[in-house]
Structures are given as structure tokens and as C-alpha cells.
């Protein structure tokens, strides 16, 4: 009977109890927390987002016409000034404006390539992973496609069809989708034989339902990863093609054409190459680093 003094009635309701022990582990929250713990990633992330926003707003609202040529010789090849922040090129066009329009084009290109790759890659990957009989054929296909140097296909296609936006997209996507597909297929493999899936199957859930319900959570991370990796590669390919003479036409403003123009006028006016290049490098390096960091962080196996 003395025990009564040791214990006090807790007076808790059942609902409260549930709330306290409901330890919500959210994959996404954890992942992003880890991501932002790294100062460098946060800084770069902020930088990239601001660059993106600036590009969008500048190209939408700026009054400077990037195509405006000048017939006055004294407007040509101006160094940076208050009127033209990056100076002017050999036809008097404002380089600052051209750079940002160029960024827009290049990013649009990367986004298109990324989306198409993702779309076909994910579908193919799901199919590849879930349909056992397809594995042999798809693996063979993968081996063949990955053996073909992407550069060669790019050169070939640009040579055949007239060089342009859609040609580059086609060239890059032709070999790109299979890597996404393989990645998805591996993920599917790890999930497919997980016990809860076996349970689902034995309960009679349609394969299609299983496929979509389980893959969807991965998709967001894959999309982000794919974009982060595609951007540097696309911009690099575009610059490369431009150098060979198979890039976007000179009338289009893109980072590739800007670099081209900058290189040819480098001896006389080095600043014309410098500024677009700096912006370009910032973009590619940031996306590359962010992509790496994100892929490290989304792999839960890295953290025990």
C-alpha cells in the first residue's frame, strides 16, 4: 500500500500518446536537411536559383534588345561601361543582354534534353525492371548503345540534319535515355523483390499499380539529379559542336554562339570572351557540384 505514493496517475488521453510517439521520418526532410548542412551546397544553390530568376526576369522585362546592331563604328567593341555592363561586340550589340538570353537558350536546351531523356528513360526503365523477359534484350540494347561514342552520334546527326535546336536535342537524347533507364531498372530490381512487394503480388495487386506507387517517390530525386547532370553536359556539347561548325546558327543567341564569337575576337578584345565564359562556368560548375551533392545525400546507404 505504500506503493501508492510512488506512482502518480498519468492522466493521459490515448490521442496525446499517439501524437508523441508518432516519429515521423520523412525521407525528403532528412535528405534536404543533410543537403543544406553543407555550406557550399547552400551557397551554390542560392546562387543558381538567383541566376535562374534573374535570367527569367531579365529576358522578360528588360528593354535592351540583344539583337540591336549599331551602324556606328564607334559603338563597336566597346569595353564595359555604364550603358553596356559587359561592353559591346563587333556589331555593337550589348553583350550583357546577349549573355542572359544565351543562358536562357542553353538552359532551355538542357531542360528539353533532360525531360525527354527522363520520360523515355523512366518508361523504359520501369518496363525493363519489371518485365523479367525483357531483361536479356534490354541489356543487349544497353551494351550496344553505350558502345557508341555519344560525340560521334552527335556529330553525325548534326551533319545529316541541319544543325539546330532540335537536332542537338535529338542527338543528345538518342544515347542518353538508356542510362536513365538502367538506373531506374536497378532501383526497380532492389524494390521488386522486397518483401512488401511480394506481399502485394500475392494479394493480387496489379503490376501496374505496384510499379507506379513504388517508383513515384524516386522520381523527384531522379528528375533533379538528371537535370543537374544534363546541364553541364548539354552546354559542353553545344559549345563543342559550335566549334566544329555544327552548332546552333549564329543568329541564335546561346552560350555556345557567344563563346564562338568570343574566341574569334579574343586576340583583340579578350573581355568579350571573358564575361559569357564566367557565367557559363559558374552554371556548369554549380550544377555539377549540386548534382553530386544531391546524389550523395539521397543515397540513404551512405549514412548509417
Amino acid at each position, binding site marked *: 500500500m505504500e506503493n501508492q505514493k510512488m506512482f502518480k496517475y498519468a492522466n493521459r488521453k490515448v490521442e496525446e500518446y499517439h501524437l508523441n510517439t508518432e516519429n515521423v521520418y520523412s525521407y525528403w526532410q532528412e535528405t534536404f536537411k543533410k543537403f543544406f548542412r553543407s555550406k557550399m551546397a547552400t551557397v551554390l544553390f542560392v546562387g543558381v536559383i538567383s541566376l535562374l530568376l534573374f535570367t527569367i526576369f531579365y529576358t522578360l522585362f528588360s528593354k535592351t534588345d540583344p539583337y540591336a546592331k549599331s551602324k556606328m563604328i564607334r559603338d563597336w567593341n566597346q569595353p564595359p561601361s555604364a550603358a553596356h555592363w559587359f561592353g559591346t561586340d563587333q556589331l555593337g550589340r550589348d553583350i550583357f543582354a546577349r549573355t542572359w538570353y544565351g543562358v536562357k537558350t542553353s538552359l532551355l536546351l538542357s531542360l528539353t534534353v533532360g525531360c525527354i531523356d527522363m520520360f523515355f528513360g523512366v518508361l523504359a526503365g520501369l518496363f525493363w525492371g519489371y518485365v523479367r523477359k525483357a531483361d536479356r534484350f534490354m541489356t543487349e540494347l544497353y551494351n*550496344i548503345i553505350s558502345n*557508341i561514342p555519344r560525340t560521334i552520334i552527335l556529330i553525325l546527326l548534326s551533319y*545529316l540534319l541541319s544543325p539546330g535546336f532540335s537536332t542537338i536535342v535529338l542527338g543528345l537524347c538518342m544515347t542518353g535515355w538508356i542510362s536513365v533507364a538502367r538506373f531506374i531498372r536497378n532501383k526497380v530490381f532492389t524494390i521488386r523483390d522486397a518483401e512488401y512487394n511480394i506481399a502485394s503480388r500475392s494479394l493480387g495487386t496489379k503490376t501496374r499499380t505496384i510499379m507506379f506507387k513504388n517508383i513515384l517517390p524516386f522520381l523527384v530525386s531522379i528528375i533533379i539529379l538528371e537535370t543537374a547532370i544534363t546541364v553541364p553536359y548539354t552546354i*559542353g556539347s553545344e559549345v563543342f559542336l559550335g*566549334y566544329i561548325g555544327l552548332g546552333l546558327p549564329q543568329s541564335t543567341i546561346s552560350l555556345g554562339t557567344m563563346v564562338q564569337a568570343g574566341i574569334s575576337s579574343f586576340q583583340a578584345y579578350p573581355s568579350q570572351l571573358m564575361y559569357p565564359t564566367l557565367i557559363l562556368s559558374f552554371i556548369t*560548375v554549380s550544377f555539377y557540384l549540386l548534382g553530386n551533392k544531391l546524389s550523395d545525400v539521397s543515397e540513404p546507404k551512405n549514412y548509417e
Partner: protein
Amino acid sequence: MLKYLSKRMFHSIFTVIIVSFLIFALLRLMPTSGYFTRNDYERLSESQREMYLEEIGVKGNVVINYGKFVINTFKGDLGDSITISPGTPVSSIISEKAGYSISFGLAGVFLSVIFGIILGTLMAQYKNTFIDHLGTFYVVFVRSVPNLIYLFMIQIFVTKWLNLPTQFVETDPRTWFLPVFSIAIVSSANYAIWIRRFMVDEKTKEYVRFNTSKGISDTRNFYRHIFRNAVTPIAQRIPVEILLTIAGFLVVENLYGIPGMGRLLVSAIQRQDNNLVQVLVLIFSVLGVFGIMLGDILMTLIDPRIKLSKEA
């Protein structure tokens, strides 16, 4: 082992056939004016042009023409160049240039492997110190910024600084160094990051701790045991790397005016010489395919634990 080798080779040949057929078929989609010099195009009548095109295998049944092409290839006849050097057999043009590309390519690969492995090893050994960060910075820079940009910068600044001529001159050894160096810079980044990753992974393995408990010094442990195990996968990657440096290769050859296959391809594209483009693209693709096959075989030879055949 032999079974695996033959299987793998068959696989690669099959890939080459498919790839070459694709290239062959795709190229025939080109505007046919590319097969004639300006004069010829205007002089010949429509039906004469058709006849010529049929003869060189552009019109007509794709499969039959492909077959003819293959047979001709084995006979050594790869067609004639059309715009670059009209009438000259493609095979003689390419054989002139091949020597340069091969020597530069091999020298570049050699340099990049050595430099890359040394850098990667240092980065792994002094992980998370200044050396590691510097190396990482270098690798990230090389991998993300388009090759053309920094290679161009290097060309401009180094030639100014060291007072070298910018274009390649066969007789002047001073001009040999920069192109090789440029190729090496691009590839070594990949080797460095791989070696670093492999060595870091190896460090976590149990035999390393066992060695330490036996009393083996860290350095000896590192270089004698970890290094050997980490190098194995690199051997597989080397042939693949060779093929991946095609883009950088094209850029370097163009920048420095090296009369090699890369520069030839660029000129052929600009002057729309279909025959030349076709053969060159084929060569690069075949090199790529066989490079990968070589890499797989190399890996099985070096590491007896790996068996890539499907035996249960």
C-alpha cells in the same frame, strides 16, 4: 576463359556491324549534292547524276550497297574523297593522318594515366586536406567547364608566357608538348577521381585493419596493398577513356593545327565530304567498340576473381 573471349569478341563484332550499318544507312539521308564537286554537279545531267550515285552505292537497295561497302572495305577500297581532295582514295588520305593522331593520342593517354593516378593517390592519402581540396577543384573544373574554353585559354596563355609557337610544326619539338599536355589534362581528371574513390573504398575493407593490427606501417599498407587492389578497375577504364576523349581530341587537333584524323573529320564536315565523313565516323566508332571490349578482357586477365560469363 577462351569461351568468354570468343563470346565477347562476337558480341563486339555484332555491335560494330550494327553501328556501321546504322551510320551507313543514315549517311544516305544526306543531300546528294554532297557527292559531287561543284563543276560536276552542274555539268552532269540529272540522269547522269543518278547513274553515278547508283554506282557509288548511294541510291538503290541499302542492304546490297552495305554489303558491297563491306566487301570493298576488306579489299582496301574505301571510296574516294570528294571535296577535300577530289579523286584521292580515302584510305590514302587517312593513312597519312593516322600516324599523328595515334602518336598524340597514345602519348596523351600515357601521360594522363600517370598523372591521374599520382594525383588520385595523393588525394586519397591526404584525404580532406589541402591537397585533396585542390585536386577536387581541378577535377570539378575540368569535368564541368567545356573543354574548348580552358584548352583555348591554356593555348593562349602558355604560348605567350613561354614564347612558343601556337601551331604544331613537325620539326619543332617545342610544339609537341602543349597538345599532348592538353589531352592529358582532360583525361587525368577522370583517372584521379576514380583512383581516389577506389582507394578510399579499399581503406574501409577488413584486410587493411588486419594489416595495421599486424604492425604494418600505414604507408606500406597504403602503397603495397591498397594501391594494387585499387588499380585493377582502372585498367578496365583506360580503353573506354581513350574513346571518350574523342571530343577533346578533336578540339586539340583543331586548336593546334595537328594534321591528324580529328582535324580531318572537322574539315570533312565543313566541306561536306560524305565519303570521308563516313569512313572517319566509322573508324572512331569501331575504335570505341573494340576499346570497351579490350577493357573488359583486360580486367578479367588482371583480376582472376572476376568472371564475366554467365555461369551459375
